[in-house]
């Protein structure tokens, strides 16, 4: 039977097992919306701004490992989606973004709502396609999902002119796909794995540094086995938190600009660094000249271009984290008597000295609510079991530092692009993926206003998120930099006219609670989580000038932290 292009899109999504599409209609996609109207298999979630659609699909993908799907119209629909596409790209999130395009015969004419979507998104996608013929539709969708979800994942844009969605052809979804130009590496090279094992065995001061790649590659189990069988210390990047449990004594917490003292000092002094699914981002390495001066480096990564990009490594292993670690673990299991036990014991003694610094301490007796305290209480109120999304700023760092993530895919934030506005829509995607689970969005009064309109989407779909607004009245992270590096000239990091967030939440049909005293923090959180089917917006009035510590200033080494 012949189907229209629009119907084929739905069939492709069904074939890929997609349950949700996040989108917003407009002229160029009306045929597609008409096809949506006529079926019940794929549910369309109507957001309030296309940026929200991309972040929601992104949050859904991060929480499930399945690709998120977005549908937007041409022109402004596509440009509004750009921030979310770039956010997903920087964090290697599998996502399919369908953008409507003006009819084929008008392309290039500066037609109404025409932009060159393929051109605009080219540098922020793993790949993109413009469909010229309805007969190519099924194959291009198959390719798009394959490319988005394999190797180092990433967003793929499919731009579809309106006329193509009305044309008809026979539909058949390819069951397999082979692309002569795309062959991601899965298994690691045996010789390299052997070299890595030798280095791992002989280490005197080893350090495991793992990143978001472990979560993306579903390698969390393997990482746990690897780390525990060796008894080596492990630190995780902002994107990697949860892959290895924060509550395990082997975990030194996060590293980098706002990492712990013990993690950064151990990085600086280690003699063998085992980097797993991490990419030596500048927020992690600090000054490259001073990075890990004594270390031989092993790097496991699925993306060959990540290897020796910023830091030259000694033993690169290109492959997916899980199979590579499986291979290494199998070899390690054969070792009965490690020869470096004495050295490792000494190393831990040193690390424990650094740990004793207690670098995350903060004033427990404050009469004003400390943001760190709210996060700690949130952890307790949710038994560490909530999915936590965040926006960008101090609150993001406090969330990463004080909510000890024990499970992968539990911590969802925009690490690479650092997109304010991410938290709320991402939480919607997480909640849809995991109905019945606790989902908290830790945010700030500035960030939340960037996608606040999505409160309306939450009402429409009854998403019972808990919004933890750490309201310090400042763009806290900007203010902190201005305090440290611009002699407290707080240029434009302050809003003079904040909304009444309680009234705002209520006007969207939600519950709002304002919390001003430390002793009210826990009761408010408990009350919020008791309301299982309501979105509760908790507006915590926090210490206005609290800073995130430790901090590594730009240009400094990991051993040159500013401590509280």
């Amino acid at each position, binding site marked *: 039977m012949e189907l229209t292009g629009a119907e084929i899109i739905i069939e492709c999504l069904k074939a890929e097992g997609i349950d949700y599409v996040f989108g917003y209609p407009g002229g160029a996609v009306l045929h597609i919306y008409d096809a949506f109207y006529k079926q019940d298999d794929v549910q369309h979630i109507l957001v309030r701004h296309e940026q929200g659609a991309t972040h929601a699909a992104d949050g859904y993908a991060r929480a499930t490992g399945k690709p998120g799907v977005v549908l937007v119209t041409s022109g402004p629909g596509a440009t509004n989606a750009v921030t979310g596409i770039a956010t997903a790209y920087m964090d290697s999130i599998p996502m399919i973004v369908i953008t409507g395009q003006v009819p084929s015969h008008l392309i290039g004419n500066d037609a109404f709502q025409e932009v060159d979507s*393929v*051109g605009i998104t*080219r*540098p922020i996608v*793993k*790949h993109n396609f*413009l469909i010229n013929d309805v007969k190519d539709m099924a194959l291009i969708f198959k390719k798009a999902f394959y*490319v988005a979800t394999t190797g180092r994942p990433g967003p793929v844009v499919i731009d579809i002119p309106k006329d193509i969605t009305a044309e008809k052809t026979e539909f058949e979804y390819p069951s397999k796909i082979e*692309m*002569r*130009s*795309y062959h991601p590496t899965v298994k690691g090279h045996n010789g390299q794995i052997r070299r890595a094992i030798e280095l791992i065995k002989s280490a005197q001061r080893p350090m495991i540094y793992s990143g978001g790649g472990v979560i993306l590659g579903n390698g969390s189990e393997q990482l746990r086995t690897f780390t525990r069988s060796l008894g080596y210390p492990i630190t995780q990047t902002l994107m990697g938190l949860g892959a290895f449990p924060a509550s395990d004594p082997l975990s030194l917490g996060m590293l980098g600009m706002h990492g712990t003292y013990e993690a950064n000092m151990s990085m600086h002094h280690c003699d063998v660094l085992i980097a797993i699914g991490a990419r030596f981002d500048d927020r992690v390495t600090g000054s*490259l*000249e001073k*990075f*890990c*001066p004594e*270390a031989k*480096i092993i790097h496991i990564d699925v*993306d*060959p*271009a990540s*290897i*020796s*990009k910023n*830091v*030259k490594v000694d033993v690169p292993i290109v492959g997916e984290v899980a199979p590579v670690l499986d291979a290494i673990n199998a070899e390690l299991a054969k070792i009965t008597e490690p020869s470096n036990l004495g050295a490792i014991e000494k190393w831990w003694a040193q690390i424990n000295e650094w740990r004793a610094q207690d670098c995350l301490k903060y004033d427990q007796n404050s009469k004003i609510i400390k943001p760190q305290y709210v996060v700690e209480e949130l952890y307790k109120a949710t038994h560490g079991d909530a999915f936590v999304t965040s926006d960008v700023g101090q609150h993001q760092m406090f969330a990463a530092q004080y909510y000890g993530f024990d499970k992968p895919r539990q911590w969802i934030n925009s690490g690479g692009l650092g997109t304010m506005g991410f938290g709320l829509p991402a939480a919607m995607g997480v909640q849809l993926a995991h109905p019945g689970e606790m989902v908290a969005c830790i945010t700030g009064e500035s960030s939340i206003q960037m996608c606040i309109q999505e409160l309306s989407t939450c009402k429409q779909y009854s998403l019972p998120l808990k919004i933890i607004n750490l309201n310090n009245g400042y763009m806290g992270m900007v203010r902190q930099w201005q305090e440290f590096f611009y002699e407290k000239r707080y240029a434009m990091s302050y809003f003079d006219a904040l909304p009444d967030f309680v009234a705002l939440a209520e006007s969207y049909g939600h519950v709002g609670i304002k919390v001003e005293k430390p002793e009210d923090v826990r009761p408010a959180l408990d009350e919020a989580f008791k309301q299982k089917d309501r979105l509760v917006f908790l507006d915590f009035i926090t210490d206005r000038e609290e800073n995130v510590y430790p901090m590594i200033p730009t240009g400094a080494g990991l051993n040159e932290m500013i401590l509280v």
Partner: protein
Amino acid sequence: MVYEADNSEAVEMKHIISILIENEAGALSRVAGLFSARAYNIESLTVAPTDDPSLSRMTLVTSGTDEIVEQVCKQLNKLIDVVKLVNLTDDVHVERELILIKVKAENEARDEVKRIVDIFNGHIIDMTDTTYTLEVTGDSEKIDALLKALEHITMLEVVRSGQLGMGRGAKGMGCKPC
């Protein structure tokens, strides 16, 4: 462990890179866009379809330290449309470039130019009462030498193809067995 600390490797060299890429709309802009987005330098780039019309062959000349060029190659390889990439500089290879030059050719310059073209194994492919259009092929050193030889002649227009390259020996680069 860091490039900057290791000056011995920081020598900038010219590299000639051959790429087989899907002959699709936008393939060229993906390559060009990569260079501008990552601030890599691009000296010349030629592209045309091959005997297999579904594939284009590009020859790209860039310069940088070994590490930078390694990154360039990895990033190019990462483009979904790139089927195969070879850094020709790593092995013996041939390079050719074609140059067209329109020169003023009057009085004694008319003979002089003709002589130079002969020395460089070139041709005069168009002429007027006052000008010649020359065609010369060769590696970039030869082309540079030609331009130097013509220094005292008035050049009205110069166009270079950019370099083409191919590995020496029996092996082909394509997807086809040889």
